[in-house]
């Protein structure tokens, strides 16, 4: 077998339909007789619901129903959405009701749903649903939430501490006691959203003839969603089909199961008509999950040479009003801080606070950008205090390749010890610095200064746990027309998984790439599935594609050998044919072989024949994989406006073996753009009553084409020994170290003024305010 496709810069199979407007997103699915939904959402951050009167709304022409919690079927009407992520550290495990019952705990929480002839009419009727609220005290800032006597985010909890987690190894206090240098930092990262360009959408239809409930959802996890829905409806799993068709971006917030994914199917069952709901952007700001609020008080102890002796501190995580993804983000943050460095002693104490804001779940990076920010800014501090080069301090502390496999001393989010298998951290930094022209930067900075310009450079390294299990399956089946059907529980929100998996399978079964027929994101296609998060699909589904493809290849060769009367070793597969090497090269097409493998009705197979050219594999990784990389940002800052422009952005990235460099480059570039948003722009603002203030793209800024440079990317490929492909996952690495590198670069550019930045996003106005407070404008030339 020649690896014709694996590793090649193959253009994507997803593209042609999307480029001509023939994609099929949830809101493109048109069903006859469909009705439209609009949700009644809480205008209060915390309130008791006294009563709901839908009389006026129901009287409006075109309105078919108004459903409240009590109108939902059992057990959805009383049970909360099932909890996906348990952890013994969780004291208050709280998930939402599909529709709020007695109490609302954040602005945007769904209270009722209006079903009408059109979305326009449904929106007209929403204000006519009269909800009588008794407003309760709310808590917005997690630092206030954990103070004694703070208003309680839910009226029936003792306090707002949902969980406390201590991550620890070594004797950190002893290491600090004997350390010649200890530096303390206080840092804060604020929340933003995934902000996929397609907001959420759900369409549901029930077919009474088959009793099948079909749900189209713009989700990253249709198999998980089906399971949750089956629990909430008390339905057999097999009586629900959930489909995630083309999905317009995910980035995390489309992974959890949402109230709307329960209510719309329930309404379709109740009304006996298809129901459509497409979230508008304002609703997305109010009710799609967000992430990143973490406050750090951390300290680093180093010896006289800048070698780390210990890291310790506390972190406060704002989880919002509910915990649909448990405490995954603070947990991941706590185990990500040591990163690529030898940290002999470590302790982080994490407090998870509930507040009256929209719940948090992972957003591209999931706790890692915050952890990397905390660690890398401490490394910058060490360099500054000890008057060492920032790259040199990092170099002195790297875990060396010969120390692999390296056990950090913690348990990762997969339940297994945090052990890095492979990765070359010194080479990563060396490569990034060389490409970025780091050695020549001091001269560039001096020349810029002479011209009255302020340029700076920042470095950040990271290690990222990826490829989480438990599995993702792939079925490979040769069809009678010679095409090769591939079905998987993996899902596609733009990552190019269809192309990557097709490359793997085509190499095995010897077919053309365009002859692979892929079904993704459909619970009818494969019995088990998990979905897209944690940069996991190339590791899990990619490996399953290889295993299933290899087995189907073996079956093809065995059947061709039997049929042609030659030894299996003499069969080669090429362009959809099995060809015998000898004689006049007799051949059978894959389609002919598929027909032979289907047998003839009533006729016995001869010995050695097996039914169908088909195999399903579920690869189960033994533990998480660990990617790593280095970012170097070079920026110019205008002190008068606080504007930041990128002069250069360099990435060295080790995601293991690369299946398709075109796709991986795109993941890295897009990830960096998200990181730039987190570093400079994306600030979800709430007032003191937890009212969201940034609910449009005019208030909450995403980076544009004017803000994002094209990155200079180097792939460093250290194969991953934990799966047969050697891959590690590439979806999030671009985002994770970006805020740390960018904010370090800004600080470096403005070093003349002695200003320090310990927060993200660092907006222009914050830069100007900080410069003003430092008296910088008196010092300007």
């Amino acid at each position, binding site marked *: 077998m020649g690896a014709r496709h694996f590793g090649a810069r193959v253009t994507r199979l997803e593209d042609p339909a999307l480029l001509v407007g023939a994609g099929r997103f949830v809101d493109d699915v*048109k069903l006859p007789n469909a009705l439209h939904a609009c949700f009644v959402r809480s205008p209060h951050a915390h309130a008791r619901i006294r009563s709901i009167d839908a009389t006026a709304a129901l009287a409006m022409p075109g309105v078919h129903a108004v459903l409240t919690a009590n109108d939902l079927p059992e057990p959805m009407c009383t049970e909360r959405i099932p909890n996906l992520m348990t952890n013994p550290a969780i004291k208050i495990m709280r998930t939402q009701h599909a529709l709020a019952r007695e109490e609302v705990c954040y602005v945007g929480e769904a209270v009722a749903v209006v079903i009408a002839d059109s979305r*326009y009419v449904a929106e007209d009727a929403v204000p006519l649903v009269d909800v009588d609220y008794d407003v309760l005290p709310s808590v917005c800032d997690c630092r206030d939430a954990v103070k004694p006597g703070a208003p309680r985010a839910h009226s029936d909890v003792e306090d707002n501490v949902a969980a406390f987690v201590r991550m620890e190894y070594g004797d950190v206090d002893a290491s600090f006691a004997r350390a010649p240098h200890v530096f303390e930092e206080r840092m804060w990262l604020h929340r933003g959203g995934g902000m996929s360009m397609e907001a959420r959408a759900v369409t549901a239809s029930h077919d009474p003839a088959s009793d099948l409930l079909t749900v189209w959802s713009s989700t990253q996890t249709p198999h998980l969603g089906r399971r949750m829905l089956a629990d909430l409806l008390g339905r057999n799993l097999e009586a629900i089909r959930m489909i995630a068709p083309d999905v317009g971006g995910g980035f995390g917030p489309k992974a959890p199961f949402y109230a709307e994914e329960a209510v719309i199917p329930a309404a379709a069952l109740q009304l006996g008509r298809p129901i459509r709901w497409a979230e508008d952007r304002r609703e997305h700001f109010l009710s799609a999950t967000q992430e990143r609020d973490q406050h750090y008080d951390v300290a680093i102890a180093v010896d006289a040479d800048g070698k780390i002796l210990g890291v310790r501190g506390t972190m406060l995580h704002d989880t919002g009003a509910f915990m649909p993804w448990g405490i995954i983000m603070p947990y991941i943050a706590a185990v990500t801080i040591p990163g690529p460095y030898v940290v002999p002693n470590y302790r982080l104490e994490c407090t998870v606070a509930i507040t009256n804001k929209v719940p948090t779940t992972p957003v591209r990076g999931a706790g890692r950008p915050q952890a990397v920010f905390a660690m890398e800014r401490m490394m910058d501090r060490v360099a500054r205090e000890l008057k060492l080069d920032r790259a040199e301090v990092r170099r002195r502390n790297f875990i060396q390749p010969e120390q692999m496999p390296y056990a950090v001393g913690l348990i990762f989010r997969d339940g297994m010890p945090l052990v890095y298998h492979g990765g070359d951290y010194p080479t990563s930094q060396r490569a990034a610095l060389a490409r970025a022209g780091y050695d020549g930067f001091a001269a560039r900075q001096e020349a810029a200064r002479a011209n009255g310009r302020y340029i700076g450079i920042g470095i950040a390294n990271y290690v990222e746990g990826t490829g989480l299990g438990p599995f993702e399956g792939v079925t490979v089946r040769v069809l009678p027309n010679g095409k090769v059907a591939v079905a998987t529980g993996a899902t596609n929100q733009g990552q190019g998984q269809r192309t990557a998996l097709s490359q793997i399978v085509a190499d095995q079964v010897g077919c053309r790439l365009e002859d692979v027929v892929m079904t993704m994101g459909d619970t009818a296609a494969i019995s088990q599935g998990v979905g897209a998060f944690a940069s996991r699909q190339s590791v899990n589904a990619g490996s399953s594609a290889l295993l299933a493809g290899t087995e189907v290849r073996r079956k093809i060769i065995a059947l061709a050998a039997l049929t042609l009367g030659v030894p299996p070793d003499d069969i080669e597969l090429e362009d959809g044919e099995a060809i015998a090497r000898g004689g006049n090269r007799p051949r059978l097409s894959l389609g002919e072989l598929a027909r032979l493998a289907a047998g003839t009705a009533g006729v016995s197979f001869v010995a050695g024949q097996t039914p169908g050219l088909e195999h399903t594999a579920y690869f189960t990784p033994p533990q998480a994989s660990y990617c790593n990389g280095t970012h170097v940002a070079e920026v110019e800052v205008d002190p008068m406006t606080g504007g930041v422009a990128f002069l250069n952005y360099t990435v060295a990235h080790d995601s293991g073996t690369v299946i398709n460099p075109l796709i991986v480059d795109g993941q890295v570039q897009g990830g960096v753009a998200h990181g730039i948003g987190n570093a400079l722009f994306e600030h979800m603002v709430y007032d003191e009553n937890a009212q969201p203030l940034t609910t449009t793209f005019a208030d909450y800024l995403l980076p*544009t084409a004017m803000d994002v440079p094209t990155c200079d990317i180097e792939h460093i490929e250290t194969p991953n020994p934990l799966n047969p492909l050697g891959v590690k996952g590439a979806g999030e690495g671009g985002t994770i170290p970006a805020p740390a590198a960018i904010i370090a670069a800004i600080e470096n550019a403005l070093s003349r003024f002695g200003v320090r930045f310990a927060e993200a996003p660092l907006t222009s106005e914050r830069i100007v305010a900080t410069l003003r407070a430092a008296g910088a404008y008196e010092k300007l030339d």
Partner: protein
Amino acid sequence: MSTHAIKLSVNGKPYERSAEARITLADFLRHELGLTGTHVGCEHGVCGACTVLLDGRTARACLMFAVQAQGREITTIEGLAGAGGKLNVLQQAFHEHHGLQCGFCTPGMLMTLTELLRDTPDPSEVQVRDALSGNLCRCTGYGGIVAAALAAARSVRGA
């Protein structure tokens, strides 16, 4: 709600429909005419996913009422490909330079760049980025889109 008769041309094809005054052009194209290639990403005119050409000029279909398109010529993403669905030069460049990932912003990107490349056949990278600054993409980080636009311009000039 008053209903109005609307005559307009979309991608060279004439349509006669009636629509309520408040129906946006984006909803009209998607739900009345079944042209779902035009996407709605924010409904407040910032993201640019719904961008179409109105008498040859880019317009936000989410900020217009369908009745305002009375008698106008509209081009959507469905109108870009050549005979038999063959990708045009810009679409092909998007394919070759990985100018799309999820594909949701792509219709607006293509329409914006169609206007730019028609009016500015030899754009600089800064001109391309400036033209794209009214279209948000969350997946690509714009690198592939900018590269595709510049490659398409080169290709058209070379042809």
